[in-house]
């Protein structure tokens, strides 16, 4: 699946370069162009944090269109592009790939869901590079855990972070609890669920692992 995602990523890279963003649409008249891309990205990040994945994706697409799916093509805006791509990838991972993000990724069909999740994992892995932060690692683990073939790696990544008390949020602890339970590590699962509960993040289901 990751090979498919790689192909998809490379394919869309060439296809979407140069598509206009909201800030570019100023017509031919002489007027001041105000780049509001950052506002869109910030808004989408808040929506993502609230679990409003459809709106988050829509907001990113308003500003970037399909460009957020492709690799950045150089020039300015590298950071904002990376943030936009992260939002899409996490929205895909957390929604299970249900929501279309463009370029035939995501939607009701299982193949589109699978392709979107594979793309999300690849995008997050590329963003982390060779020295990912714990936040990037935990987010990659979220995406990997959505694929049967990625769960072992997701567990390994989170276990290492958890052993160093470096899981950056309640979602990460909840996922570690779930993955630990699946591997038969009941004690580890309980500890991770307890850390999740201590953080007490609204909307995060810490007890999922114990029900799994």
């Amino acid at each position, binding site marked *: 699946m990751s090979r498919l995602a790689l192909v998809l990523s490379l394919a869309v890279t060439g296809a979407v370069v140069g598509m206009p963003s909201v800030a570019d649409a100023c017509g031919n008249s002489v007027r001041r162009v105000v780049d509001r891309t950052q506002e869109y990205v910030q808004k989408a990040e808040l929506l993502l944090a609230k679990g409003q994945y459809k709106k988050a994706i829509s907001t990113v697409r308003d500003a970037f269109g399909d460009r957020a799916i492709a690799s950045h093509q150089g020039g300015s805006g590298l*950071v904002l592009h*990376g*943030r936009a791509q992260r939002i899409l990838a996490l929205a895909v991972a957390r929604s299970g790939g249900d929501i279309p993000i463009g370029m035939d990724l995501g939607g009701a069909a299982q193949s589109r869901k699978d392709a979107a999740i594979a793309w999300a994992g690849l995008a997050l892995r590329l963003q982390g590079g060779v020295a990912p*932060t*714990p*936040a990037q690692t935990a987010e990659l683990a979220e995406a990997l855990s959505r694929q049967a073939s990625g769960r072992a790696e997701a567990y390994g990544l989170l276990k290492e972070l958890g052993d*160093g*008390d*470096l*899981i*950056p*949020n*309640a979602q990460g602890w909840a996922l570690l609890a779930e993955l630990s339970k699946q591997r038969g590590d009941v004690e580890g699962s309980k500890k991770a669920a307890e*850390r999740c509960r*201590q*953080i*007490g*993040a609204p909307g995060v289901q810490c007890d999922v692992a114990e029900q799994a």
Partner: protein
Amino acid sequence: MSCGTGTEDPVDVPPPVPAAPVVALEPAADPAAVARGQALIDRFECVRCHDIPGREPASLEKHCVRCHQDILRGAFPAPPETLREWQGHITHLTDVPALRGLERLRRGWLAAWLRAPHDLRPGLNSTMPRLSLGTDEAADLAAALIPEPELAAPAPGDPARGRELLGDKSCTLCHRFTGVANIAPAPKLPVPLDEAQLQRGLAQAPDLRFTRERMRPAALVAWLLDPPRHKPGTPMPTIPLTDADARAIAAYISDATLEPLPTPKPVARLPILERQVRWPEVEAKVFKKTCWHCHSDPDYARGDGGPGNSGGFGFAPRRLDLASYPGIASGSVGDDGKRRSVFAPLPDGTPRIIAHMLARHLEVEGGAPEQRGMPLGLTPVPLADIQLVDTWIAQGRPQ
């Protein structure tokens, strides 16, 4: 002709001049040390805070003072309402001394002070930060900043007269002189000063207690006679003094008996609170107040994330982001290049991040604790606010 000195033959004999203490004069600095020190000025990014002759100041987004000065006078490129908000927040790093005329200072003192800086200028609410530099590096930096040899000391002056002059010339209006009996400044300044110069003088005036170890004796007398000649732009005005006056003031500053410094107060870690403390409270009261200026994520902030994230002032990049919950939970990069939790307990059980904040209190008290005090060179985080963070950590860092 008589050479007697008896009462029957009074002769106006000047009092004997006490012999000056024999102190080895500092020679010119070793050129190799000067060269190494010049490279260290770059490495420690001294121009991010200080003006240094012959060197370009740091760019605005990296300058620890000019950015604040521009905001305060409304010249920083930001919307007016943002500027007004920021102006209400800025209390630190609005003025720092320029590194000009340093040949008046003792090279040996500067090297020792750079290693363990103490509060030299009580009117400033920030101090020289404790940088990550060894003894040799400190000596090389001092050599680069003070390459000149020391000149021979002048004849000593009259210390009693010097004490009078410190009051008469209103020196003690700006300068503290801890360790000696209070000297009241004269009600009228000996020279006119505009408000801005007076305010800068009040802020930058060093505590005279440290002058005897800090300044070269000959340079001290020369400085007193005409400070701007030695350091253009200094807020210290040229006060009309005779050579004897200057030597008298220098003698008192150098020889007055000093009360010992107060014993450093122990820094008490306050107990864990009973009530719950969540992230928004510690974020607002501690991390988003000061810490995130140097520890933020470059992808989510102006600039490079600050020296506490991407490195600077000679510090390696620690990749520490204190601007968000996931950021702080992601820890920092240790000397071994691996990520470590900032909440992990040190051998005495204190979480690392708490130890750094408590260390700043110890530094202000005159100590040089193993952990570097944070915030670096700034006013310590109040103990009650450290208690909040400590409680938040003990409760499992609820979000």
